């Protein structure tokens, strides 16, 4: 084994070991001190991050990628399942990003959760989640991928339901699992199809053997899986609901790592999708619809976390658009840059929420610029990066995506939707900054404002550096697997910027209008549509569950189980036998004449038979 691949594989194992050590320390009977989280868990992630830089540098200098198959887990007839780790471009770049973001979030969580009696358990959950995420990213095998996939799903269940005495948190947790399960059906379908037709779940074997087959249906299954996990239109409501969890959870799971798993699956499988325009169109339309719909929902929300959640969903839609454009590497780039600024936005939101005595409504904020200058400036930087301001992180990925979209000839409808969503990004970002940081304070008296703890500032600071330079850093150091579009007309080149600026201007105008009243009764139908999330949850969270529960109660339980099956089974035996039993038993009531008569009759019959024979 040559040194490079040895170093890469051993550093991957080292990362997993480092992350699992604090979890294993649970087994020791000693009680953990409250500082355990900060000292052990955070340090473990930090070390893991530095270790993960090693393969990154090796990759940058030598372009080294490695696949490690080290244990034949099990096999059925000719079908092997191996533990096999893939350390390629995507996982090498994503692992340090995920670990860097988690390092900051864990440090922040040690401040945010400091009053929680089970803070150490919270950190363990986060570490287990992180391990599942790394398993997912480095999996070279669909089964292993599925382990990571469900692992992050179930940790998301636990973490959303962290405050488990609250009904809302439990509902949101269950909602997340159920929506993800709908997506899982797609993944299970694809896995079943692949194992039956290709006889392997190993990635490279799938890529090689799938050449001659029609893969449309399994690929659609994968798209469904990604729809569930990455909260695309149709299966999106769980993501805003997931904001019931603690803010560090929202920052880690529901913005930067877990929710991109669906997109990551499609990126991993992109060599297969290459030849299927149908799948491209499906992804493109789905992504465009998601990005516009969720951006529309973000426009009128009042909960600071909900707005950021919807913007996450909108960005996920944009990534899906990239998959549809057959530019998976741009989607990947956007995953990486998005992780920094979205995690930072959530951390800033967390800091502000704590500072304002757990107030999440942006209408009751305002003027934070002078109250928490550091947090709100970072918040603004994050929002700017999100809108794709030139030379911040978001610009490098978002601009490339819009450019690729502009010059593609796939679907003008999707193009318009996406451009509209891009301008909406500017609108809701400005609205957020306008209500939170600018203007006069509308806060409760005596808020416990304090952003001076290093556990608040340093993570946000680190992520702010990331939000500013990560785009430049990543794009200038790595060569994307596909060539970027280099030439295009000026108006197409400037389209992304133009729509963003247009959005900004419209938003400024709207912001001016908020303090004035033009009509006595404003027309608010559109506002209702956006504010009520397009009436989607109202319908979907009522009708199908009600149908299924009614099926369970009235048809399955009452009609079939308790009525018909009883009636034709046990009860039928009873009713059918009863007349027979009553007749025979009534015949024998000790009446001498009747007994003798029947005796003589049967005797005569018997004799008749005997003699006639």
């Amino acid at each position, binding site marked *: 084994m040559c040194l490079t691949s040895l170093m890469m594989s051993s550093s991957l194992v080292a990362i997993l070991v480092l992350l699992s050590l604090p979890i294993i320390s649970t087994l020791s009977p000693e009680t953990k001190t409250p500082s355990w989280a900060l000292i052990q868990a955070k340090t473990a992630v930090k070390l893991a991050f530095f270790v993960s830089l090693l393969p990154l540098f090796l990759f940058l200098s030598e372009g080294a990628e490695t696949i490690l198959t080290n244990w034949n*887990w*099990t*096999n*059925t*007839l000719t079908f092997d399942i191996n533990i096999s780790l893939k350390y390629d471009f995507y996982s090498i770049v994503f692992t340090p990003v995920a670990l860097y973001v988690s390092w900051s979030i864990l440090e922040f969580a040690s401040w945010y959760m400091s009053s929680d009696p089970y803070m150490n358990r919270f950190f363990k959950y986060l570490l287990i989640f992180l391990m599942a995420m790394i398993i997912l990213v480095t999996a070279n095998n669909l*089964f292993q991928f*599925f*382990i990571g*996939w*469900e*692992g992050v799903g*179930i940790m998301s*269940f636990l973490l959303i*339901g962290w405050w*488990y*005495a609250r*009904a809302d948190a*439990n509902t949101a*947790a*269950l909602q997340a*699992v*159920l929506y993800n*399960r*709908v997506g*899982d*059906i797609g993944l*299970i*379908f694809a*896995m*079943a*199809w692949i*194992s*039956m037709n290709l006889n392997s779940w190993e990635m490279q074997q799938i890529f090689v053997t799938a050449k001659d087959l029609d893969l449309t*249906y399994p690929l659609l299954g994968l798209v469904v899986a990604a729809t569930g996990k990455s909260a695309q239109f149709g299966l999106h409501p769980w993501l805003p609901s997931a904001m019931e969890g603690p803010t560090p959870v929202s920052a880690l799971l529901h913005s930067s790592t877990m929710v991109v798993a669906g997109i990551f699956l499609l990126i991993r499988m992109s060599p297969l999708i290459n030849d299927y325009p149908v799948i491209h169109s499906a992804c493109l339309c789905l992504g465009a619809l998601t990005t516009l719909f969720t951006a529309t929902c973000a426009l009128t929300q009042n909960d600071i976390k909900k707005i950021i959640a919807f913007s996450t969903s909108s960005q996920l839609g944009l990534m899906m658009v990239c998959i549809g454009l057959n530019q998976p590497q741009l989607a990947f780039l956007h995953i990486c840059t998005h992780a920094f600024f979205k995690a930072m936005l959530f951390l800033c939101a967390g800091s502000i929420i704590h500072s304002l005595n757990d107030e999440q409504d942006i209408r009751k904020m305002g003027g934070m610029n002078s109250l928490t200058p550091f947090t709100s400036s970072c918040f603004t930087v994050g929002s700017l990066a999100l809108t794709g301001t030139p030379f911040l992180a978001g610009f490098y990925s978002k601009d490339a995506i819009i450019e690729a979209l502009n010059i593609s000839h796939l679907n003008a409808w999707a193009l318009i939707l996406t451009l509209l969503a891009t301008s909406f990004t500017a609108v809701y970002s400005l609205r957020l900054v306008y209500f939170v940081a600018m203007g006069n304070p509308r806060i409760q008296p005596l808020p416990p404002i304090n952003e001076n703890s290093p556990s608040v500032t340093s993570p946000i600071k680190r992520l702010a550096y990331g939000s500013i330079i990560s785009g430049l850093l990543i794009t200038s150091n790595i060569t994307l697997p596909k060539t970027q579009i280099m030439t295009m007309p000026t108006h197409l080149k400037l389209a992304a910027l133009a729509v963003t600026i247009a959005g900004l201007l419209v938003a400024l105008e709207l912001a001016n209008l908020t303090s004035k009243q033009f009509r006595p009764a404003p027309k608010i139908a559109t506002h209702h549509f956006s504010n009520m999330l397009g009436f989607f949850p109202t319908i979907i969270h009522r009708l199908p569950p009600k149908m*299924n*529960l009614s*099926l*369970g*109660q009235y*048809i*399955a*339980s009452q009609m*079939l*189980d308790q009525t018909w*099956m*009883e009636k034709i*089974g*046990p009860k039928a*035996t009873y009713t059918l036998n009863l007349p027979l039993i009553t007749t025979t038993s009534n015949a024998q009531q000790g009446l001498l004449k009747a007994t003798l008569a029947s005796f003589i009759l049967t005797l005569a019959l018997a004799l008749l038979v005997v003699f006639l024979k």
Partner: protein
Amino acid sequence: MLKVLIPTIMLVPTVWLTPAKLLWPATLAHSLTIAVTSFSWLSNPCDTGWSLMNQSMALDPLSTPLLVLTCWLLPLMILASQHHMIHEPINRQRTFITILTTLQVFLILAFSATELIFFYIMFEATLVPTLILITRWGNQAERLNAGTYFLFYTLAGSLPLLIALLLLQNTTGTLSLFILHYTTTLPMISIADKLWWAGCLVAFLVKMPLYGMHLWLPKAHVEAPIAGSMILAAILLKLGGYGMMRVMTLLEPLTPQLSYPFIILALWGVIMTGSICLRQTDLKSLIAYSSVSHMGLVAGGILIQTPWGFSGALILMIAHGLTSSALFCLANTNYERTHTRTMVLARGLQMALPLMAAWWFIASLANLALPPLPNLMGELMIITSVFNWSWATIALTGAGTLITAGYSLYMFLMTQRGPLPNHIIALDPSHTREHLLLALHLLPLLLLMGKPELIWGWTA
């Protein structure tokens, strides 16, 4: 074989001769030793085929995991019953353990039988101790009804099997599993032949139970004492699956058309019983219906008759045996504290019993088949093999997984999460015995992830 069977029989004198003070520890230690001894069966020296033979008993990769599970479950039943038996007079305690032991003897004989008629007799013999367990040691008056349902459903299904086996004996001249494969198969022409085919299977389908013939199961589970529920869920249902796999291979040349309706019924049952679970208010009944739902998947996997289907069915049977037994134990710990099976009356228990909540969580996850637990491996293999037969099944199996996740987490959230109701003012803390019991259920499940070939069956 005999090194496990004879100690199991000798458990009866142990039960009756041990001093009263040592009754539970001694029987527990004894049965646990048997269980540990039975592990040696798992290292099967020959790759396929039979091992450890004597005249009428042998092991093969199909029966070994089920036998080990049988042996493993007796100590667990003894552990679980300790609390509710402690107020009984000592002789009744002894009788109770004797009945459990008898059941184990019959089960060992049933799973290791090499002669079909021997298997049949033992299959029927298990009814007696189970019936006594349900009707004597159940709690409510409804237990008599449950016992009747249990007995008559099973008998009505299995008497045709006797006739079918006798017919087979008459035609082929043997019922030995060793040579039955090499005899000429029965022709499948007349309606009578098809009836014979159905007669061979219906007994097992009732025992599984297949949807539509499952009414006895929720009743039996709900009314049985904890040991009864455990053994019913863990082993007795699997007797049906095991028998079906044994007989299936003899029914060649198969008329697949005959089994298709059963597959569809089984998969449809997954959805129907899953939906019933979503509306259950009774904890034990919920777990019982979830057993029906999982066994529907097993039935589908067996009836499809592919190597993957068989493997998946066996894996799911073992995994589900441990999981549902663990869930019944958990339900029983609740019952022993709150004296109710109704879920709304015992909510928010994570506040009061945090470590129990961890066991609940693991057991619920196992029930909803989280990868890489063996439950998932089994389900995935079954889903794949029925998918290979028809694409449309993914709609049923997929909806099944969704509903399974729904009711498993519903059960978890209802019992563990939320605020603790006010009427629960004094709860016993959870005992070490209970934690041990749950650990002994769930650790094997977790350890099986490392080497799932042990329960892979013929295709390992």
